[in-house]
């Protein structure tokens, strides 16, 4: 079965032929199954934004092909409607708010879908609930009266109300406080539970690795890595290139392994690490000096 996103040999050049020519994407091949969560990582200027704008029809492929939800993005008629399938939340989406009230702002997308007003109302309430804006009368407030974090939530709700099959988040956590981060994490988790497809762009590898099992790394327009987190952990040269520090639990596991203990190192969660360490503890009673009491709680 073909994936929900199929990218084949995609290349993109900006301002071709002018002195400002930039090769933003070079021969990218990538696919994503329905229900998967892809973390897209890359340094600034690596082509992440260019890549995701191909997914909702903002940029049409110059070379290669992009197929999203079975629709060919190079077809101008199909790509014009791709925003309904793949919802792209831009960086700092709160800067794109323009309506007079929170309700109108969130309803902008569904109204563009030409839904009847009752369905719009339903979707707006549902979306606001999802982002945790449940206070009474908040729908009638002007967005300018809200704080930056709240405005970000309104903007994210505006995209959720469209109910796209794929949700693409470009740096959703940038400049957010911990409450806001948890809200984004919550949305992502719920989507994973409902088996909905999500793509998240970030320039923090750590942030992505704790959230997802599938990672793609872009570097100056080329795909430097694509695959599972476990496989990435086995590639220290890539990790070192991005000055990536392993999560604490993995550092512990690798250190134990380096001391000569027989422990599995290809793990991807803190829970798994705990299980492995307790196994080790059962086998070796004398391991107590290495692993002080704090790991007994696992």
């Amino acid at each position, binding site marked *: 079965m073909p994936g929900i996103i199929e990218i084949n040999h995609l290349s993109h050049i*900006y301002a071709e032929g*002018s002195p400002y020519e930039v090769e933003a994407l070079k021969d990218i091949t990538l696919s994503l199954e329905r229900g998967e969560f892809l973390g897209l990582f890359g340094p600034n200027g690596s082509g992440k934004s260019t890549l995701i704008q191909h997914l909702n029809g*903002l940029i049409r492929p110059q070379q290669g092909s992009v197929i999203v939800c079975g629709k060919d993005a190079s077809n101008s008629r199909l790509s014009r409607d791709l*925003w309904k399938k793949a919802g792209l939340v*831009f960086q700092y989406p709160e800067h794109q708010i*323009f309506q007079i009230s929170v309700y109108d702002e969130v309803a902008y*997308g569904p109204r563009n879908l030409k839904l009847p007003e009752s369905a719009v109302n339903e979707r707006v309430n549902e979306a606001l609930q999802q982002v945790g804006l449940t206070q009474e009368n908040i729908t009638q407030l002007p967005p300018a009266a809200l704080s930056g974090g709240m405005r970000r939530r309104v903007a994210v709700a505006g*995209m959720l109300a*469209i109910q796209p099959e794929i949700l693409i988040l470009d740096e959703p956590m940038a400049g957010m406080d911990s409450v806001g981060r948890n809200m984004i994490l919550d949305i992502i988790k719920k989507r994973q539970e409902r088996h909905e497809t999500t793509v998240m762009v970030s320039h923090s590898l750590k942030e992505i690795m704790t959230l997802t099992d599938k990672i793609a790394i872009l570097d100056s327009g080329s795909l430097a890595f694509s695959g599972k987190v476990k496989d990435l952990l086995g590639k220290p040269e890539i990790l070192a290139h991005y000055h990536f520090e392993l999560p604490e639990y993995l550092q512990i596991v690798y250190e134990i392994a380096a001391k000569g203990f027989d422990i599995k190192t290809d793990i991807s969660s803190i829970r798994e690490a705990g299980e492995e360490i307790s196994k080790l503890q059962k086998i070796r009673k004398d391991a107590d000096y290495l692993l002080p009491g704090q790991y007994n709680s696992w």
Partner: protein
Amino acid sequence: MTGMKLGQYVYGDSLIHRLDPRTKIICCILAVISVMASVNLYYLLCLLLLMVTAIVSARLNPKFIFKAIYQIKTLLLITLLFQAFLTPGKAVLTIGTITMTREGLALGSINILRLIILFMGSLILLMTTTPMKLSIGIECILRPLEKINIPVHNFATILSISFRFLPTLFEEASIIRNAQKSRGSQFDSPELMVKIKSYAAIVIPLFEASLSRAGDLGEAMDSRCYTSHPNQLRMNSLKMKGQDVLALVSVSVIVLAVIPVSILMK
């Protein structure tokens, strides 16, 4: 987002690039005067040749210049049609009550040529002069106005800040446009009202961002003790060189040639 914008400075190291900005601005003004003063085709062709020479010697990409001229095609077409239909003379084509005349067509073509020369002149000026130099040049040219209490320095600061933020503004507009397109804004709708309404989705956030940026910039300038005195310590103060004198003299000669040419043609 990334791309050549109309009139964007292109790095280069040619004679035209090295000319003093004042020279280039004055030459441009002289060209405007001479284009406006003459309707003689041969004289205009000479000016066109001058512009082409400048483009070639500045090593600007001719493809880009053509593209830029193509962008103002509507303006050129409207100019031609208005002249062609509104000038009395020998009829060539009659549609209903209005007639296209031979004299009108000729006049229209000359006016198109004039517009193209003016457009090319300003493109050369903008594409070979950094915004910073351009605003220093304008400041220097306007400096005499300080004697009648016009705050030329403030004016130049405003100008250089606008030059600085124009690309930022363009970029921001394109991001907002893309973001609203992602929510289904119909910028290419055939219905005019839908189109106008959808542009509000760009204009409002752009306005808000500009105002807040202006506020931030004002505070940042204040906190670094900005006062509206001319900057006496500026690096690379302007100095006219031999090449500038040469350029000014030759352009002046061409411009002054408009007088004998128009007398002779009469």
